[in-house]
């Protein structure tokens, strides 16, 4: 919690008019400014920003209302004003309005000498500021021969040399070329680092958005709105009222969110660089350069990630078999196992006292074993939520490895679909034309679920009109399947799981005795039903495909 001590400047109900009472440039303006903050003053031309700045330095005295500096009311006596002006500096928008001397050196020395310091000290300060603001190359030129950017540098030096607590910059980048704008911005950053409170009037929404701690939106002599840049620039109505536009970063981010390219739940990007990294991250990059440099010999490992199963019988012929094949393909690599289902891990622990690593635990183990490069191969069927979470977990260790590569889940490319179909067909060589093979996938609410319907379509397209694919939890559901299978009029329905393991779902939801099981439902519909309890992991073609994915990831 900030205390009142932090408030360096406070305005209370200021009224100021240039022409008697006809119109007010400041119209009941109240605001508070905290020490060390970067504050952007924005608003239409004539909204009172410059008038307020002149009030801050006591050039204008508000007709009513009070200004407080460090909690004390500003005194308009000669001494009071000199004291205020020695601590609040203002850089005017037009340098020609500020530079009164023809010599750069004389010009800069003016302010500091007015503070009453000795000539020697003034000389040192002037030299110092000339050097830090890179004025040296043109220090001997007369001010009227300087370019706009150089004049601006000198006018900032004018003020900086006085070491004020607050610096007011009235549109410092107006009419400057990009190089000088960047230079001025850099000078401003330096001021903030030195603890100077910077008040800047600007029309550059993009700069204000990424630079400011707080944005004050002026409108008709009052603060229409103030807050963090995201708050202010998120308010379309306030922006419209003050003739401002949204920063390009926000505009682009919003548009990308609307198009579903970026998640709206991401924190608002502060600058284009952040937005760029958001966009770069959505690319499904299988290979991640780690952040650790490679200085010892490489030591590679495979991390096989499965959902897991509590049925030991199926595990031996599926997960174990897949991992064996991987190990055979890469005999030099150490192979680690990780499961993503915490429930199953817990169950195994309590039932058999067997501990299987979670992804994080496995990564910690890999790290402890001094591995430098990791190739992760999931046995997931689709690029669903399980796969995304697994990637996130693995990548949280990115700093510790030289490289991390990800093999694709089973069904990723079109080629994968064709190979899976081939593997399924090979597994059921005796399937007759009049028999229907119904495969049970898991299904998910993730958009990747569409692959099931697509694969069902592809089966038909490749001439296997008697192979149907459905899911337990999503579309195509049992209802859809039943309709299609009925239309086919098969003599017999053969049920098989379309999951890596033939575990709970296969044993209960598919082949169980429960009236809701697929077996019971097909039987009730009058079909002859046969259940083949064989997980995809048992199909040699499937295992081959997973190993191929692993090889592809390793060669990246």
């Amino acid at each position, binding site marked *: 919690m900030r205390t009142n001590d932090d408030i360096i400047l406070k305005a209370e109900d200021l009224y100021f008019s240039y022409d008697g009472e006809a119109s007010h440039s400041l119209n009941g303006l109240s605001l508070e400014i905290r020490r060390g903050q970067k504050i952007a003053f924005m608003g239409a031309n004539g909204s009172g920003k410059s008038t307020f700045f002149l009030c801050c330095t006591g050039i204008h005295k508000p007709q009513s209302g009070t200004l407080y500096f460090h909690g004390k009311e500003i005194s308009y006596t000669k001494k009071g004003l000199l004291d205020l002006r020695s601590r609040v500096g203002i850089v005017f928008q037009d340098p020609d309005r500020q530079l*009164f001397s*023809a010599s750069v050196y*004389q010009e800069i020395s003016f302010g500091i000498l007015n503070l009453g310091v000795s000539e020697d000290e003034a000389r040192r300060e002037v030299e110092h500021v000339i050097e830090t603001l890179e004025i040296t190359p043109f220090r001997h030129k007369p001010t*009227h021969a300087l370019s706009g950017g150089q004049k601006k540098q000198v006018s900032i030096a004018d003020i900086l040399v006085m070491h004020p607590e607050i610096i007011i910059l009235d549109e410092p980048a107006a009419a400057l070329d990009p190089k000088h704008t960047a230079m001025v911005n850099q000078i401003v950053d330096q001021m903030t680092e030195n603890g100077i409170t910077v008040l800047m009037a600007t029309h550059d929404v993009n700069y204000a958005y990424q630079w400011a701690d707080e944005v004050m939106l002026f409108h008709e002599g009052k603060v229409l709105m103030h807050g963090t840049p995201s708050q202010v620039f998120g308010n379309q109505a306030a922006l419209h009222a003050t003739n401002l536009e949204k920063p390009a970063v926000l505009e682009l981010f919003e548009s990308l969110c609307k198009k579903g390219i970026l998640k709206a739940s991401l924190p608002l990007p502060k600058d284009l660089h952040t937005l760029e990294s958001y966009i770069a991250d959505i690319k499904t990059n299988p290979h991640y350069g780690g952040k650790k440099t490679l200085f010892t010999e490489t030591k590679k490992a495979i991390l096989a990630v499965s959902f897991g199963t509590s049925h030991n019988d199926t595990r031996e012929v599926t997960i174990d078999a897949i991992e064996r094949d991987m190990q055979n393909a890469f005999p030099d690599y150490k192979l680690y196992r990780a499961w993503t289902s915490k429930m199953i891990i817990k169950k195994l622990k309590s039932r058999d006292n067997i501990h299987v690593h979670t992804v994080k635990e496995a990564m910690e183990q890999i790290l402890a074993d001094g591995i430098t490069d990791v190739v992760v191969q999931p046995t997931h069927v689709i690029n669903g939520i399980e796969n995304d979470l697994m990637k996130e977990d693995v990548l949280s260790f990115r700093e510790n490895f030289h490289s991390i590569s990800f093999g694709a889940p089973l069904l990723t490319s079109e080629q994968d679909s064709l190979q899976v179909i081939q593997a399924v067909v090979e597994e059921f060589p005796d399937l007759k034309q009049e028999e229907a093979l119904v495969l049970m996938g898991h299904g998910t609410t993730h958009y990747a679920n569409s692959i099931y319907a697509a694969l069902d379509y592809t089966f038909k397209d490749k001439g296997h009109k008697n192979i149907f694919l459905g899911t337990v939890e999503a579309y195509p559901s049992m209802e859809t399947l039943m309709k299609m299978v009925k239309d086919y009029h098969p003599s017999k329905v053969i049920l098989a799981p379309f999951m890596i393991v033939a575990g709970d779902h296969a044993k209960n939801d598919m082949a169980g005795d429960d009236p809701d099981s697929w077996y019971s439902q097909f039987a009730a519909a009058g079909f002859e039903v046969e259940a083949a309890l064989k997980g995809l992991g048992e199909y040699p073609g499937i295992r081959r495909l997973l190993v191929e994915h692993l090889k592809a990831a390793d060669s990246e």
Partner: protein
Amino acid sequence: MMIIDKLCYNSRLRYENASEKFAFAMITLFICVMSRSIAVACIVLSVTGILTVCKGGIPVSRYLHFLTVPLAFLLMSTLAIMLHIRRTPMDFFAVPIGSWYLTSSVHSFLYALQLILTALSAVSCLYFLSFTTPMPDILEVLRKLRCPKLLIELMLLIYRFIFVLLETASAIRTSQDCRLGNRDYKTALKSFGMLGSILMIRAVSRSNQLYDAMEARCYDGTIRILSENRPLKKKVIAAIILFDTALFVFSLWRRFFL
């Protein structure tokens, strides 16, 4: 940027101590005016010319061009001294006009020549100063000479303002030209009048703004500024003393002993 201003900022003598240059120019000027001698004027003219052109690096053509500026004026005014209209012809030449003569004596011719040369050499001394010394440096010398502060501050501000207003005027003039503001004599006159009036208003508002900006930097009525002084060089001082003493002695000799 005005030409003289540009030349002095580019002069090779710019970074010499301003007091030295000022002293040289002023003393020489003084001796030159005092001596009223053609020979002294010629010496001064050539020395300052050599210094400004060879040492300072100002192009000869430019320097000569600048010298001709006062020359026309000088010729016109000395013509009156040199020419007489008399009934009797004088010893130099005489052109009869009816029963009168447009005539001149050798003495008045030499007197006119001496006036022109003295004036020119005096101007050349000032050119030397202004072609080698930027205005702020000259002001610093004046300050050392205890010139009233008010005058110096005025000169400082006026000098700066000349350029600000020139820039403004040239911008207005350009924009007038762009809109055919100087299409013919009539429009040109009108445009020039408008330029003058707006420049006046601008000047007033500019000076108000400048005053505000100076106040914001704790201005309290006195302009305090630092100047970068170049160290005095003993060799240069010695040379100046030597030259001016010699010139002084020479002029005394010319005046009283010849």
